[in-house]
């Protein structure tokens, strides 16, 4: 069936179909899942597996079909793998912050609303920088 197709074409095509299908599944999950905390994990899969497969397809294509070694794609993969958890953490913090302030009617998620912290402690996002905080030079 694929007698005249080269190994590079078969491998690249398989990786492209795999990667774009996973990206589509991730975006479908973003639409379909009920609350933000659940929605967070669908695009994460698209970032790591989906784009990882697409960039691997690019590496394979330029290496096998053109004889050209490129490493840019690996740089993009590394950068995305480092930044994806940071982004997800920031978005989850925004969600919890706004839910506690009562600024949103969005559904809270499977674990319910976050409990208030004990004592007179508070979340770090509510506290102004106080003396002793690293980077606070107001008192100097």
């Amino acid at each position, binding site marked *: 069936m*694929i007698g005249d*197709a080269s190994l590079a*074409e*078969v491998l*690249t*095509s*398989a990786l*492209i*179909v795999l*990667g*774009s*299908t996973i*990206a*589509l599944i*991730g*975006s*479908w999950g*973003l*639409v379909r899942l009920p609350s*933000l905390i659940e*929605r*967070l994990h669908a*695009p994460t899969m*698209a*970032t790591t597996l*989906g*784009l990882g497969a*697409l*960039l691997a*397809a*690019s590496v394979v*294509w*330029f290496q096998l079909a*053109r004889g*050209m070694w*490129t490493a*840019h*794609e690996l*740089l*993009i993969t590394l*950068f*995305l793998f480092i*930044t994806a958890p*940071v*982004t997800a953490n*920031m*978005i*989850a*913090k*925004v*969600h919890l*912050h*706004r839910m506690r302030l009562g600024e*949103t*009617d*969005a559904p809270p998620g499977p674990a319910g609303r976050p409990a208030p912290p004990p004592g007179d402690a508070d979340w770090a*996002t509510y506290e102004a*920088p106080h003396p002793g905080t690293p*980077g606070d030079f107001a008192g100097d």
Partner: protein
Amino acid sequence: MIAYALAFGFAALGLALALNLWRLVRGPGLADRILALDTMVINVIGIIVLAGIASGSGTSFEAALLLAMVGFVGTVAFAKFLLRGDIIE
């Protein structure tokens, strides 16, 4: 064969962008809109990589790398502004 795979990839990523746009317009929270924008950046990077394979030129990867960096900085700045009311304190 690779032409069919590229056509499928462009179609799937375009549909994914349309789904992200739906979530961006619909909300309901601000965090959902940030997440939708971040996912749109990811899908656009995928489209740029596919366009690089289709055109056979190596110059599109700089664009993809730049978009990955700018997308990350934009998302973090947006989240930081909502958390603290300021981006650089």
